[in-house]
Each structure stands twice: as structure tokens, then as C-alpha cells.
């Protein structure tokens, strides 16, 4: 499945997007964050404080308890600062 990163999450992970294959027991966004954080030291740094990481499924905001499916577009990013 495809995961997208923006702003300082992208800087820390070191890529704009990646294909990942989380195990079947990873079903919620919060579990996905925990799993991703173990993939590299960059990922660990990016997800060090999950409370400030925002997540979107198919471009809609979701909370950590939300379940995702393997064909969703998942994106992680910091709180927004536009305007």
C-alpha cells in the first residue's frame, strides 16, 4: 500500500512516499503509525510524537482509531500552517 509524507515528516522519513506491506494484524491508523515507526531510524524520528501527527485516508482527516484498507491513499503530515 502507498503511504505519503509531507513537510517535516517527509524530511525525517527521507522520502515523499513509499510502498509498504504492514502485517495483517495492523488495521488502524494508530497501529500503522506504531508499525511504521519501527521501519527505520528516520521513521522513528518522524513518528516520535504520534499525538502531533495528522493522518488522512483518501484525502479526508481521520483519527488514530480509524481502520484503513490496503487500497486507501494514506498520508501523514504535521499540523497545517497555511493562510
Amino acid at each position, binding site marked *: 500500500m502507498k503511504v505519503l509524507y*509531507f513537510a517535516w515528516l517527509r524530511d525525517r522519513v527521507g522520502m515523499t512516499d513509499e510502498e509498504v506491506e504492514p502485517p495483517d494484524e495492523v488495521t488502524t491508523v494508530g497501529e500503522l503509525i506504531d508499525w511504521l515507526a519501527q521501519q527505520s531510524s528516520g521513521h522513528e524520528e518522524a513518528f516520535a510524537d504520534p499525538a502531533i501527527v495528522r493522518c488522512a485516508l483518501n484525502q*479526508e482527516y481521520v483519527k488514530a482509531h480509524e481502520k484503513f484498507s490496503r487500497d486507501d491513499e494514506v*498520508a501523514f503530515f504535521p499540523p*497545517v*500552517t*497555511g*493562510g
Partner: protein
Amino acid sequence: MIKFQRENFDVGDELAALCANRQNVGAVASFIGLVRDVAGPGELSAMTLEHYRGMTEKQLQQLEADALQRWPLDRVLIIHRYGRLLPGDQIVLCATTSAHREAAFTACSFLMDWLKTKAPFWKLEEVGGKSEWVEAKDTDDEAAAKWNENR
């Protein structure tokens, strides 16, 4: 109407187009956001705006629909730039038109409060050769939340 662009915009032209041939419009409210200079003396600052293509459009279209539903507006216009900008450059234009001023003023303020907390844009500030991501402010979340309380 929602627009994303790298290039600058002319506020006069945009507002004129928004009101052209709309005889029922008696009020236009607008907000223009500019890049502030955050550098000290002798330094040059710049700001790069990153956005999440697709989601930005989707979020702002939802906001526009929400504003049109809540207030008796004729039209909504939001132009947001991305890319690298310099102090004094225009970042965003938000404009609303209505028969009377109250709906136009209020909806314009609502749109900006929500844009600042919902639209996936991120500002990277460059000062004196160093780049830092701008941190989100709690006061922006509070400003947006008050629109739900008033509902």
C-alpha cells in the same frame, strides 16, 4: 471558486470578476494574507509553501460549500499560492459576496479560520541560510473551534 497557483494574482481584477454582472450583490468582503519578513537586519527571509495536491482542493471545496450553506452568499473565492515567496508577496485571497455586508464579513472570517486549520499547506521559513518549518498555533485551532460553538 477555489484556485491554487504558483503565480501572483491581482486583487482588483479578481474582485471585479467576482462581482461582474451580479446585480443582487451589495457587499464584497476580502482578506489578503502576505508574507511577513521574519529576518533580522541584514538578512533576507523567504517562505516556501508546500501543499498536498488533491486534498487541498477537496478540503477547500468542502469549506466553500459549508460557507454557502451557512450564510446567504452569492459567491466565494479562495486563491492560495504555493512555492517560494518573499516578504511582501501575497499568499492568499479570500473573498465573499452577498446582498448585505454582515454575511460577507462573517463568512470571510469563517473561511480564513478554517483554512488555517484544515487546508493541508505547510510553511517553510528560510532565515539567514537556515530553513525551519513553521509550527502550528493553538490560537488558530481555538479561532476555528468557536464557529462550532456558535452554531
